[in-house]
């Protein structure tokens, strides 16, 4: 299994150049952020064709900025869910995946967290059923330590276990876990469809692997047995291919990939 590089790492680099760079650096795939895709179908087609030609595995990340699938504001909530579903449609069309999506968060610190959990569960239920219908693997991601986030721990992810279907699982973000003080998380009840990896120090996520930090890989090594999903290197945007290469080497060595 060759690790995949996230486009959030390559932010600011045009998508086509990102694909070429991922290949040059030795990654086995690229996780494309929907926010960075062009608007026209023709251009999008060209990008997916380019990834195929480069023999890169493609996973997708649903839009994040300003998106909140459990927003208090109904219009924003519906638009957010629509955009996650649109990402699933794209994955179905190009036969790629998995699709990672962020859980919703509080709109206001004054909101009742338990009531918000019910709103969030309804949204995730809709998305998970849509993924099944479209035959696309989706992963609900655990989030970094921020005041309004709801899904932070493995226990939080397990609250969606009853929504399980053959296409619904989780994206385990090890760096996000570390910001919540969880350095070696337990295996969740839902299947793992995607893994985001990067280092974390002093509460800051998405740092290069080779620089050291609090993310441990003990649990990850166990999960990798029979794992067919992606391992995605997700660094804060740094325009230095040497850093990507070193992180990749570190991952290959540490995880015996």
């Amino acid at each position, binding site marked *: 299994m060759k690790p995949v590089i996230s486009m959030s790492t390559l932010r600011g680099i045009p998508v086509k150049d990102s694909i070429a760079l991922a290949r040059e650096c030795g990654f086995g795939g690229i996780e494309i952020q929907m926010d960075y895709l062009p608007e026209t179908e023709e251009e999008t087609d060209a990008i997916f064709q380019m990834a195929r030609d480069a023999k890169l595995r493609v996973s997708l990340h649903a839009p994040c900025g*300003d998106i909140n699938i459990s927003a208090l504001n109904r219009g924003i909530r519906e638009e957010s869910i629509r955009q996650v579903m649109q990402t699933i449609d794209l994955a179905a069309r190009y036969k790629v995946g998995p699709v990672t999506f962020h859980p919703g968060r509080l709109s206001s610190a004054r909101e009742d967290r338990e009531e918000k959990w019910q709103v969030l569960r309804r949204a995730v239920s809709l998305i998970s059923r849509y993924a099944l219908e479209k035959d696309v693997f989706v992963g609900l991601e655990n989030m970094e330590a921020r005041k309004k986030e709801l899904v932070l721990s493995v226990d939080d992810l397990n609250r969606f276990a009853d929504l399980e279907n053959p296409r619904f699982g989780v994206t385990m973000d090890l760096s996000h876990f570390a910001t919540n003080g969880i350095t070696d998380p337990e295996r969740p009840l839902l299947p793992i469809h995607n893994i985001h990896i990067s280092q974390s120090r002093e509460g800051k996520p998405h740092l290069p692997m080779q620089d050291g930090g609090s993310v441990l890989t003990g649990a990850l090594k166990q999960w990798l047995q029979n794992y067919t999903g992606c391992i995605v290197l997700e660094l804060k945007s740094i325009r230095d291919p040497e850093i990507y290469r070193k992180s990749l080497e570190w991952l290959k060595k540490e995880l015996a990939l």
Partner: protein
Amino acid sequence: MLFGISTKVLRDYPLEDAIYIAADQGYQAIELWVDDVHQLHPDRIIQLTDRLGLTRTVHLLTEDLNIASFNPGIRKESLRQQAEGLRCAAQLGAGAATLHPGRKTAKTRTMEEAWACQTEAVRELAWVAGELGVTLCVEGMEKLNGEFILSCEDLAALLARCDVPGLSVTLDIAHLHTLGNVQTLLQQAKALPVGNVHISQSRGSKPHLTLFDPAGEIDCRGALAVLDTFYQKTVIVEGYVSGQGLEIARRSIRQLETMLEDRI
């Protein structure tokens, strides 16, 4: 100046009760939040506030919206809802409608891109407001992640970029405190078309404490004195504490009146 109170301070009460409380306590204006007004028919709100002698201002929606979002779907939905809010303000006969500007939520985009998005969005809403006969007032925000319309300079730059007649600003005293000395900053506002003012206390980076909160750091008396030299429209009390709406309404107006009398 016309002292008013936000319906958010009185959110524990049904809207009709909140309107009566505002009038009973001696306020001359009420700021109606768009998400509160659905409780009553617009005609009833107009009839009641007219009878009680309350000037109406409107606060457009804030939570989850971002009119300057780089996500086209979110930006479009945010603009749709704010335009709807302006229609609501027109229906209520509100003179001023306060709008929170958009935020820059994508770190990879440049400030110039954010300004372009912001300008286009505010300009669009200013034209809608103009057609409806409502004064759109863009609020200066607190120093928080992503906010970039903060100071009077920012507001002046936004108004200049938009270049739409009638576009005005809402000054928030507590937000200004997150930027520096309020009295000094208010002096800079003299050149701006100020359509509305929000007032509450603030401590450090925490705004919207009640006016009588002992932790408050703002010299509100001094702020009102500066404001009085160039502004005579609505000054709206903000700062909600659960279960204390009536008490806040009662004490805030007394405090504001005393401050103004002392000045005279």
